[in-house]
């Protein structure tokens, strides 16, 4: 090397991860500063998918708002509409038929299974294990088949309406759902075996450790919190819809290490518990009952002015809707607190000090859903 050429030493490196990134299907901007291979600092930018739903909902009436709110998220859409409907029903003091409550719960649990399958699949994809990702997606199709049979749609089911559900579960559907859920139960042990495989263990064990103190300090929710040893699940703690009836049929899954491995293991075990809940619900579902005859528009006119906070346990954790009805068929204000916007704060603890190659796995283990987060 000639003497006049100065050697430049790159010790720090700023690398943008997103907003459009091959491993993220959604726009999330994470700019990481690297010291060699170790993340020294990170900068998060969100809001790329902000559609202003909270503001837009106030310009619509309650029935129209229902359709908008389903589209907060394409993965947990019936959780959102269920939470909103429960809020409106609380304000209007509307009674919901038992069958409708059970159908809502059934849809919520089916949704939890396909959401968790998606998350495990994405985690495998981030590790470069495409075959497993494909397997998880094949299993997921079983749930979508059930949705299609019961509601007519694969993704946005439009099942929840104010005061009940749009469709009922027919006795013929019950057998089909049972068969599909049995199939999934038979596959789940294979997914547990996947986690016990040496290579997978080495990528997930002790990666992205969240201590219980951090979980409490940041107020994290859902499987992320439960994987760190926090026993918090609204389905048990404050049963809503049909969960009161099936309370004894499932247990809350908790793990103790709080690493990426435990978060994924907790999700796989939760799929098993959801299958149990579905079997208990199907036992409880009485014969075919036609949905409530009252027209949604007529019900909407009976909703007075009022304010209520409605909470449910969505697949990713506690989902809260702050509903302010104006008594004139519309909304004064709507606030949506999604579990993903709470859980993304965990990156503060997780990313700094982590190896760069672990960053995609760490982000995936939090099960981020950017459309929920940005609303």
């Amino acid at each position: 090397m000639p003497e006049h050429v100065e050697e430049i030493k790159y010790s720090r490196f700023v690398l943008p991860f997103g907003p459009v990134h091959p491993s993220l299907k959604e726009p999330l901007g994470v700019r990481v500063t690297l010291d060699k291979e170790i993340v020294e600092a990170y900068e998060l930018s969100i809001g790329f998918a902000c559609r202003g739903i909270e503001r837009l909902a106030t310009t619509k009436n309650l029935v129209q708002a229902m359709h908008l709110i389903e589209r907060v998220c394409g993965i947990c859409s019936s959780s959102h509409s269920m939470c909103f409907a429960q809020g409106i029903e609380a304000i209007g003091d509307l009674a919901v038929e038992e069958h409708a409550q059970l159908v809502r719960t059934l849809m919520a649990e089916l949704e939890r299974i396909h959401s968790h399958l998606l998350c495990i699949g994405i985690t495998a994809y981030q590790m470069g294990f495409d075959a497993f990702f494909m397997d998880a997606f094949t299993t997921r199709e079983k749930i979508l088949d059930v949705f299609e049979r019961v509601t007519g749609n694969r993704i946005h089911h439009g099942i929840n309406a104010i005061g009940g559900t749009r469709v009922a579960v027919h006795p013929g559907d019950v057998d089909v759902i049972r068969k599909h859920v049995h199939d999934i139960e038979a596959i789940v042990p294979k997914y547990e075996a996947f986690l016990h495989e040496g290579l997978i263990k080495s990528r997930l064990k002790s990666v992205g450790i969240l201590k219980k103190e951090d979980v409490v300090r940041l107020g994290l929710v859902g499987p992320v919190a439960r994987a760190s040893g926090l026993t918090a699940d609204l389905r048990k703690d404050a049963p809503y819809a049909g969960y009161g009836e099936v309370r004894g049929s499932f247990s809350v899954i908790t793990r103790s290490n709080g690493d990426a491995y435990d978060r994924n293991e907790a999700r796989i075990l939760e799929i098993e518990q959801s299958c149990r809940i579905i079997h208990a619900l199907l036992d409880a579902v009485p014969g075919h009952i036609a949905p409530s005859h009252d027209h949604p528009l007529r019900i909407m006119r009976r909703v007075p002015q009022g304010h209520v906070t409605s909470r449910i346990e969505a697949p990713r954790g506690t989902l809260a809707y702050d509903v302010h009805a104006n008594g004139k068929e519309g909304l004064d204000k709507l606030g949506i607190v999604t579990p993903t916007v709470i859980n993304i704060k965990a990156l503060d603890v997780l990313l700094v000090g982590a190896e760069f190659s672990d960053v995609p796995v760490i982000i995936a283990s939090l099960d981020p859903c950017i459309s929920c987060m940005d609303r």
Partner: protein
Amino acid sequence: MGTRTTAMARKSPWVFHVNCGSCNGCDIELVATFAPRYDLERFGCLLVGSPRHADILIVTGPVTRAMKDGLLDIYGQVPEPRKVVAIGACAIGQGVFHGSDTLDEPLDTFLPVDVYIAGCPPRPETIIGGLIEAINA
């Protein structure tokens, strides 16, 4: 795929996907299209990680203000001949989010869209049909 007349139909069309504020519904159906049940990859279609490798640009979502510049940047990186496919009601005309403060204008007012695939979200079969149309157009 019929007679292979166009330049794009004579090779394997590679696809790049941009989410411009979609609710995930279309995105998840697009991924399901490439998953084993529908398996679009058997036709040589591949979901790639860089717009520079792509022949077809797939846009989902109502195009939020924050994503618009990024989308135009990505469109500029796709080499010619290129096709733009809009998936879902949002990408076609902002759908249920029409009138929101965070949206600017619909996709086809600033990008030439070749194929519109309707639905909220469209089924994987519809997506496959639309992509075949884009290849043969």
